[in-house]
């Protein structure tokens, strides 16, 4: 059995979430129905909504369930004609408009705040969208400062928080954000569910029309099985109020990085000087393409990834590293992202295999 170290792509489903989903899987569950089954469905739905709301500190009616992070981002991005976005956004944001104004990041992967402000003045844009944390490097953006700038110019501010959710504390209400996209399958819930968190529910136009579910924001009978799983996964993270799990993951990830750096002088870890998600390392190895690294490690029983793979499975070179001025490394870097199911030795084992691979290809 392979060791899974690709939590930023998707995570295993938590046992507790699976159990609850199995409970819902069976009875007829349409929460719009008037009868007792419908009422039962509604109560599951609202419980999940409150669990998700609690995790991000939002009100119940600020949570709109969607089919995932991509849909939540698209609902917002379609509202602007020329949004201002960071150069390291996920494709869910990048592909949403042909008329993006890109804001550079520095070599640590942090948004250039001066350029952000200058571009606002220059372009008369009506929206800013910056991801809370980057999926490839784990670098955390200075959201407080970014939101402050947006407020100063009275510009709508959206955040793709898909990768940050569950890994660092997110407080929607006190953040000042207008909207935020999150996803279930990165935190131990199932795929196919996400949510858009909206400060003012009147801000958004629905992109899926029909029966008017989710207060008219997102029609279609709710994916209750998925939503219930999302709720349980969210509640498990809220329960760990001291962030014991993530802190532990962070300690091991740091040890892993230090061990690699001690043994291999010319590797590089991106965003090293920035605040990063505790579970994410983006590592450059000279002389071996990322796809060869990923395949070789897969054959040795480690699931890691290179950049963001598109649906056909072919690996694109990383636009994130290019934006960080590290185009030279874009084809040679892999991402190791650990999670709650990893045990103490998993990263240690990977480190040994990685070092072997390095030695083999850097003879």
């Amino acid at each position: 059995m392979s060791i899974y170290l690709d939590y930023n792509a998707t995570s295993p489903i938590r046992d507790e979430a699976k159990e609850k989903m199995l409970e819902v899987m069976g009875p007829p569950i349409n929460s719009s129905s008037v009868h007792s089954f419908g009422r039962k469905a509604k109560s599951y739905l609202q419980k999940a909504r409150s669990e998700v709301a609690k995790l991000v500190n939002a009100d119940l009616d600020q949570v709109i369930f969607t089919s995932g992070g991509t849909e939540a981002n698209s609902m917002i991005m379609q509202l602007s004609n020329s949004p201002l976005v960071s150069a390291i956004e996920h494709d869910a944001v990048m592909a949403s408009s042909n008329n993006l104004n890109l804001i550079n990041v520095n070599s640590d992967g942090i948004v250039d705040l001066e350029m952000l402000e200058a571009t606002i003045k220059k372009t008369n844009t009506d929206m800013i969208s910056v991801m809370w944390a980057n999926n490839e490097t784990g670098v955390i953006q200075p959201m407080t400062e970014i939101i402050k700038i947006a407020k100063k110019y009275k510009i709508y501010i959206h955040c793709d928080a898909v990768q940050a959710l569950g890994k660092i504390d997110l407080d929607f209400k006190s953040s000042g954000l207008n909207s935020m996209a999150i996803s279930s399958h990165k935190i131990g819930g199932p795929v196919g569910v996400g949510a858009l968190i909206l400060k003012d529910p009147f801000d958004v136009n629905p992109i899926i029309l029909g029966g008017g579910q989710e207060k008219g924001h997102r029609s279609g009978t709710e994916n209750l099985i998925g939503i219930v799983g999302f709720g349980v996964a969210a509640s498990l993270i809220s329960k760990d109020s001291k962030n014991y799990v993530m802190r532990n993951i962070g300690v091991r990830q740091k040890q892993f990085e230090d061990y690699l750096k001690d043994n291999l002088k010319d590797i590089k870890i991106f965003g090293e000087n920035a605040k990063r998600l505790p579970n994410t390392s983006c590592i450059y190895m000279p002389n071996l393409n990322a796809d060869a690294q990923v395949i070789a490690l897969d054959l040795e029983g480690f699931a890691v990834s290179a950049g963001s793979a598109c649906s056909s499975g072919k690996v694109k070179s990383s636009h994130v590293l290019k934006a960080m001025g590290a185009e030279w490394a874009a084809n040679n870097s892999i991402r190791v992202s650990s999670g709650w199911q990893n045990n103490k030795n998993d990263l240690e084992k990977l480190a040994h295999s990685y070092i072997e691979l390095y030695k083999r290809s850097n003879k």
Partner: protein
Amino acid sequence: MLKNNILGFNRDPKDTKVVVAMSGGVDSSVTAGLLVEEGFDVIGITLQLYDYGMAIQKKGACCAGSDINDAREVANQLNIPHYVLDYESKFRDQVIDDFADEYLAGKTPIPCVRCNQTVKFTDLFKMAKNLNADALATGHYVQRVVGKNGIELHRGVDPEKDQSYFLFATTKDQLEYLRFPLGSLNKIETRKIAERLNLKVKNKPDSQDICFVPNGKYSDVVRRLRPGSIEPGNITYLDGSILGRHNGIIDYTIGQRRGLGIGGVSDLEEERLYVVDIKVQDNEVIVGPKEALNVDEILLKEMNWVNNSFPSDKKILVKLRNTGKLIPAEMIKMNDRVTLYPTKPVEGVSPGQAAVIFDANDENNVLGGGWIVSTASKLQKKYNLSSSAA
């Protein structure tokens, strides 16, 4: 003591790691199937080489997308790890661009050889080594023979399927590492194995065309790749008289007879005319009688010798196109180039094609070969044809 396994390693197949280049076709699927059956540690790799939709600019029935899926499904069926590598930009730089440029230079290129030379046996080769594999296996119909003078490349047993013409550029280092399990089989046997293993692709037809020119209209592809660089010009008889117009020299190949599109002559006369030369500088297609196709000197460049040394015997056999016969010739070396003197004049030799050289004493043994730069003949000299200008 262990016997050598069928890939020639002195150990148990399960301890022999082999990468199989899987295209999604029957041949490479059977290659993988046979090796799995023998118990080898098999890894399947499929190369994404081009965007099929871009190649034909429409949605079609059979496409690279579905070939990749076929390879994936076969690998699944065989329960082996399988990966898709994105070599689109390498393939564009090293194969497709060369293909277009060669046509524009009035030549008739063979992209399959370039692909074997570069993408498959350089890049994929490197990947297989990086994965610590002991060998790279393909579904080519050629044989790797361990002879007394080292490893030799021999023709596939099935003369219909033999692919040695496309593999003449294989270097000694590459051949050491490569394996061709189908080389000793004929096509019927391969199909039978596909049937026996019940491979999902068992009924898939063989591919006929150049992979990125799926409908066989290579000139359309060149026009799309190099818009604006293709100009109409004259079709001229050997003596200089203009017989008609063409829409671009890329539509013509030396030796071509049909579809010349000469308006001014009767069908009967056109039947007797052949493309005997393509003058790139004048943008002219030269036509003439069949005799004018005869050449008695062929200049070759970029020679590859499978065992790394120039053959001792200057009498050799040569194949000048894939479907051509073996022709006796003498070979003379000048620096890094070689001139061939066929025993009898040969016709229809196109610059850009490969000249593949076989051992005169063992016509299965591929010694190597090179690319045809130019040709010469008495008649060519008489009419000052450009092919004679080496």
